[in-house]
């Protein structure tokens, strides 16, 4: 638990949050490891985990019968994977797969939600932090829509 608390406390996702946040999250967390190619989460499954990536790189993917596996994004150490637990229908929209051996802090979000309701100040701070991350992802996605490296003819 002490090791987990240290890791959770040092993760960039929680940097600068109020005292007690790391301890609260740690109470819902465990350390997990994934082999190369292993799925952290699978499209359609129940979304109940937030992954704080510690090591390795994780690909966010979707697959189609004709397209095959399409990697949409990757997340490295210090990043966060798994947001569909935030809102109904609490179902993963994509796959997340370890591109290389990966380690993460897996947070049980059902327990976390209960704890956050009990501690609204920490809850607000954590939700606000989650909003920052989601905003960053939204902005990065919009930038990619510009196709900056295209030659203009492809836009």
């Amino acid at each position, binding site marked *: 638990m002490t090791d987990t608390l240290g890791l959770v406390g040092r993760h*960039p996702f929680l940097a600068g949050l109020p005292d007690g946040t790391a301890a609260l999250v740690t109470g819902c967390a465990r350390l997990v490891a994934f082999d190369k190619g292993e799925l952290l989460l699978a499209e359609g499954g129940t979304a109940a985990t937030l992954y704080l990536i510690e090591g390795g*790189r994780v*690909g966010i993917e979707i697959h189609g019968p004709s397209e*095959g*596996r*399409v*990697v*949409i*994004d*990757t997340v*490295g*150490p*210090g990043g966060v994977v798994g947001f569909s637990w935030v809102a109904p229908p609490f179902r993963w929209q994509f796959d997340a797969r370890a*591109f*290389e051996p990966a380690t993460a802090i897996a947070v049980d979000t059902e327990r976390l939600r209960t704890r956050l309701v009990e501690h609204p100040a920490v809850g607000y701070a954590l939700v606000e932090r989650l909003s920052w991350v989601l905003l960053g992802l939204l902005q*990065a996605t919009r*930038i*990619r829509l*510009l*196709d*900056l*490296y*295209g*030659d*203009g003819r492809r836009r």
Partner: protein
Amino acid sequence: MVDVAEPVTHPAALRSPLSPRPYRVVGRRVDLVDVVTLVLEPRLGQPPPFAHGQFNMLTAFGVGEAAISISSVPRAPGPIEHSIRDVGPVTHALCNAEVGGVVGVRGPFGIGWDVDGLDDATEVVVVAGGIGLAPLRGAVADLVERRREAGGRVYVLAGARSPDQVLFADDLERWRRAGAHVAVTVDIATPDWSGAVGVVTTLIPEAPFDPARTVALLCGPEIMLRLAGRALVDDGVDPARIRVSLERNMQCGVGLCGHCQLGPLLVCRDGPVVRYGGLADELLMERQR
């Protein structure tokens, strides 16, 4: 004997910055489906000295002229290299120049990266998007070599549209083996790609450089320059220690014609490399009417 099919330059014109000198194409390398590197040497004499980040005006005779950055290392013996992206009639003609053919060269022009004076402990973060790695190639090669035994490190963060558009893949691997931190991300992945996917700025937090002793060199699409500059400043890099290479419609190369004006700058003369803090950060925010 003079080959009558080739342009002949009057000796007096050789001294004029507006007259192209004939250079022989002595090598041609297809880097990407739309990027070709031409290896050029003057038909007479040696190429003039140049600095990292400077550019030449290359002429495809009978078609036109385009500003192309020099992508080889200054002081390196032998011919000079230009990496050209095929985006229009002139660059298309240049990309299709054959070994043994002749192109015109004027230059070198402009202000370069000015990295020769950096002390060895300075860490250098290079952020390049697409063809933006070409004007940085010589500087990175030089910096990696100079830092092999020194305390400073080079961080090369490169973005490309897709894996088949990653420029200078061999150089990137060579720099990595020589001790540089090299990270590449693509906007659109293919099934065989196992690297990062996303915008190039996402590579910045993962690069373990010390912002307090960092100089950053940025080249790529202007929107990317703006975002990368901001991300580096947010990370603690001094805006005055960030340099960006601007791209404009360079024509004369010597600040006479005004085609490349950007705010108070004539980019061909006052750039292409300018400081980010207090200059490029504002110019890159200007809205064209």
